């Protein structure tokens, strides 16, 4: 919440959620939701839940949210439902949270792919976790982000990201593709 407010141009104005998707989509840069602190390179051997936990903690820390476990539990609860992993190797854990006004997001780059516990034939190579406001008017933006991230993180970008060694390189790759 904190860092999001630092970038008012990216904040979720109530009107933005009501407008048509294309306008919302055009106004939303995925790279602008990320920063060095929220791009992680988890150590090998971690499972999906552990990566989600690390990302939730980093994202909440960046937004100055103390009770990060509430966020973690919510996203894990969502993970019990229909799968959030795509066959491109992108996993998209997400949750709609009360008490936030904008989107909080982070990325985990997995040098060694980890299996998705719900779909054994799918491997996760990049995880993009995000929280969006639990408000009806924000739902359109929530869906925009799901579509936008899925569209952006195609196998070619995922290959490049997993070859990167620092968060800034990852951010630069995302920015370049979005430009």
């Amino acid at each position: 919440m904190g860092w999001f407010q630092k970038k008012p141009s990216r904040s979720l104005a109530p009107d933005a959620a009501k407008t048509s998707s294309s306008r919302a989509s055009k106004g939303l840069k995925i790279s602008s939701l990320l920063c060095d602190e929220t791009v992680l390179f988890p150590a090998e051997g971690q499972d999906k839940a552990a990566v989600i936990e690390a990302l939730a903690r980093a994202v909440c820390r960046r937004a100055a949210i103390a009770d990060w476990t509430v966020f973690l539990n919510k996203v894990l609860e969502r993970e019990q439902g229909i799968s959030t992993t795509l066959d491109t190797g992108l996993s998209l854990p997400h949750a709609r949270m009360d008490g936030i006004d904008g989107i909080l997001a982070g990325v985990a780059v997995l040098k060694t792919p980890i299996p998705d516990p719900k779909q054994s034939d799918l491997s996760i190579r990049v995880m993009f976790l995000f929280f969006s406001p639990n408000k009806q008017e924000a739902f359109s933006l929530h869906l925009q982000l799901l579509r936008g991230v899925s569209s952006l993180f195609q196998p070619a970008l995922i290959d490049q990201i997993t070859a990167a060694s620092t968060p800034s390189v990852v951010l630069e790759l995302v920015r370049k593709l979005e430009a």
Partner: protein
Amino acid sequence: MKPEPCPGRRVTEVVVLNTAMLTFISFWHAGAIVLCDMASTAWYIGGIVETAIGPAAPWFIVGVMFFAAPVLALYVEGSSMFVRGGVYKVVRESMGGTLAKVSVSALMFDYVLTGAISSVSAGQYLAGLVNSAFPRLSIHWSVDPKLFSVAFALAVVAYFWRQNIRGIEESSDKAVKIMSLVGVMAVVTFAWSAYTIAVRGFHWPSFETRFTPESLGWLASGQWHKRIGLLGLVIAYGHAFLGMSGVETLAQVYREMEAPKLVNLKRAALLIFFSALVLTGSVSLLAEGLIPDAIRGRYTDNLLSGLAMSMAGPHWALLLLQAFVVLVGVLILSGAVNTSIMGSNGVMNRLAEDGIMPESLRHLHPRFGTTHRMINTVVVLQALTIVLCRGDIYLLGEAYAFGVIWSFVFKSAAVLVLRFKDRSPRLWRFPLNLRAGGFDWPIGLALLFLTLLAIGLVNFTTKKVATVSGLSFTAFFFVLFTISERINRRVAARASAGHQEKFNLRQADDLSVIRAEIDKPNRLLVAVRDPNNLYHLNKILETLDSETTDLVVFTSRIRTGLGLIDETVVMDHDEQKLFTRILELAEKSGKSVTPMLVVSNEPFYAITQAAQAVGASEVVFGVSAKLSTDVQLERLAMTWGSLQQDKKQVRFRIIGPGVEHVVDL
């Protein structure tokens, strides 16, 4: 070639349901189909009725054409209740299966005879033209009208057999073209007649009826018509009743009529009424008034040729007019053959859906998706009748109308009974309903039924040929249907749980196949799964503009593992039920749909791939019993983004009773 096994979320098989890709016809097309039968009687009714009842024939013909109005109204009420209506369905719903089988057996007799009398009459006209034109061209050769008409009739039946095997859309286009030519001919004939009347004057037909022993049938011995004056009128009226043939086809084409269905049904009924009245009624009056008595006998079998040759003007011009009348006559009479094949095919389909006809008869033509075996059956019966009648139009005319009148009697009785049995509101009601005791008493319907019954009973005793041949034919078909129904008890048992449509499946390995089926600027995909949860499809059909939007109705069969790869797609019972229901909804609304089934290992990928292959700008779902609408949309947004190749915008809609979520992405 089958794709290699792949861990990704793939669509491996695509099935497009050929038969279900309904295209709907306008009221012009529907009206033209019916008129090809009904208005074609103008070419032979005058001669036949005059032979039977004498010089008053045109007045009774005009009377019958006026009477078409309430009969058409009866069909509007019946069809508004059952999209796949017609006499069989309506009678079965109100009075049970046995009477329904009797009524439809009588109707089949009408259809078989329509094909025969129309095609033979066309042959007679052509033979008449050849025999009048050849001497003028110094060709000393003539044709035997009866032999020629039999050969020509067989050729016409064969031609329309082929057309109907190819499908209704093509044949309805031809019907419109034929009726346009008939319109031109009517204008030319009326204008020329007006000129002739101005030059020579006009003597109105007398009201005198002159019955022959043949036309009085079993009543001839008692001279009953002289003792009871009204009876004579009904006898004469009954002889002219063949002018009403073809009305039942209106109910058969109703399922193919485009939206707004009921409005178009009424328009078609009005078009049929006025066109038949003007053409058949006026032409019969003009023929009686303009053809001199001295030459009338020569033109009994081709009365309109006689009318053409009796106009004022040089002989060569009259010959040209006769050629035009004959040409149009040949076309419309041939069109009547087409109508009879289409109508009887529709009737037999309703019987087959009910398990009365053998299931094998519903087999679809592998290329055209038509019920070719049913068409073959009717065509063989028509050809047999043509050969057996040996070109005798009067014999056919005498036999005719049995099926017409009795199917009307049954239909009116059934609609009347339904007013008492089923008191739910009607979309449209036959007029003259008297409110008393909290119930609308159907006085108009009751009067119509009694009138039709009276005509039917009188015809029964006067038209010997019709009664004997009609009863024999009806009995034959009734026994055939009854035996067939018993043999098909298993099918009938299944039908009691709701009929299942026959589908032609066209299988392909990738989704690009669907592109060939759609050509409109807007594309909309509706995902369906549960036949009892099609609320969203219904809502979409209500507002769909079929002119500008292709509607693809999509379902997926989810398989995992190797079974996905080599699966031969044969629709299972549930899928059959689902698509039958889709087809019913499309027919009810009169909107075109393209149903599609794909085999995949993940439903959201399947929907997304299909929608993107179609180029859909809108994807519609029903409310799921398993997933919340939010989760459905989330998953769809993810797969959409993951598979999207362009930046095209899409709208997702989730529709349920009292629920509608719209998201633009």
